[in-house]
């Protein structure tokens, strides 16, 4: 079971600096932590998605999911979020080239695309409320808004982080390794995107 990657550097001898990071595995602490956090988030979103799946058919007193969903709109906003993953990865790539200007540009574009997505979601929510589906209306409503709301909050937190990053990089006040932090936030951003890939299919495309 013992993974060689976990063990080998430790046996390599005296010099901790042999690897990119002075750690037993040679991997960055920050990145390791971020991946662990994302693994843990799988169980969070898994719980929310399961709650929705269990309750999506229980929509007494409101229009049904298939009546409510505006597939064209959601498709576009899903596409926007998907493309923000592209711009994010371009930002990471620029950061790794230590190209600050492109990094900040791509980060800004990513944040804007994210904001577009959130905007569409806010619009969608208000539409639903107009049509008679509120947070407290029924089980479908509670679980729909909780699931998509949690995702929306994740996107929003991502946007805040991206903008903070832009600010910090352009003022070049940065503790530690810039590229690595861009990469970490990128991981978070992509994760939020893949969660939406699942939500888009399970919630919107597959009718109850």
């Amino acid at each position, binding site marked *: 079971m013992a*993974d*060689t*990657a*976990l063990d*080998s*550097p430790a*046996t*390599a*001898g005296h*010099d901790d*600096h*042999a*690897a*990119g*990071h002075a750690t037993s*595995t*040679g*991997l960055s602490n920050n*990145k*390791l932590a971020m*991946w*662990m956090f*994302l*693994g843990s988030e*799988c*169980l969070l*979103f*898994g*719980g929310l998605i*399961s709650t929705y799946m*269990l309750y999506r058919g229980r929509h007494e007193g409101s229009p049904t999911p298939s009546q409510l969903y505006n*597939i064209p709109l959601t*498709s576009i906003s*899903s*596409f926007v979020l*998907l*493309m923000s*993953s*592209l711009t994010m*990865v*371009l930002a990471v*790539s620029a950061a*790794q080239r230590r190209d600050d200007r492109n990094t900040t540009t791509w980060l800004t574009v990513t944040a804007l695309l994210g904001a577009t997505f959130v905007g569409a979601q806010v619009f969608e929510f208000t539409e639903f409320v107009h049509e008679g589906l509120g947070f407290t209306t029924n089980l479908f409503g509670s679980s729909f808004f909780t699931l998509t709301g949690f995702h929306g909050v994740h996107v929003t937190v991502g946007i805040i982080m991206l903008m903070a990053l832009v600010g910090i990089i352009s003022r070049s006040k940065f503790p530690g*390794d*810039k*590229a*690595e932090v861009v*990469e970490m936030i*990128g*991981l978070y951003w*992509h994760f939020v*995107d*893949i969660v939406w*890939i*699942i939500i*888009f*299919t*399970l919630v919107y*495309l*597959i009718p109850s």
Partner: protein
Amino acid sequence: MSTAHALAVDDAAPGDDAAHADGGHHEHAHGLTDLGYVKVAIFLAVLTGMEVSLTYVHIGAFFMPILLILMVVKFVTVVSYFMHLKFDNKIFSWLFYSGLILALGVYLAALCTFQFFAGN
């Protein structure tokens, strides 16, 4: 090269501090070129297009499985390429996929118990 990477760490000669001192990353060498990322994005966009158009044509029993497969392909593509999991140390894959698989396992099992009840 990607699988060997985990071992590459301790292959580095002792005293090879250069990469570290300037904050450089051994991950540099991996991943795609910017053009490569654009191609992946186009692939994803096409899949999304397929998904959406599927909801407008009626293909009966295949609808669900196809959508689910497309979903998984998109998911894995983003994780592997944009998140570099394919190129990175496999510890990261372990951490993430163990969370993912665990989540799938427990929640599907839990949902199943609701089904079993219905059939009881």
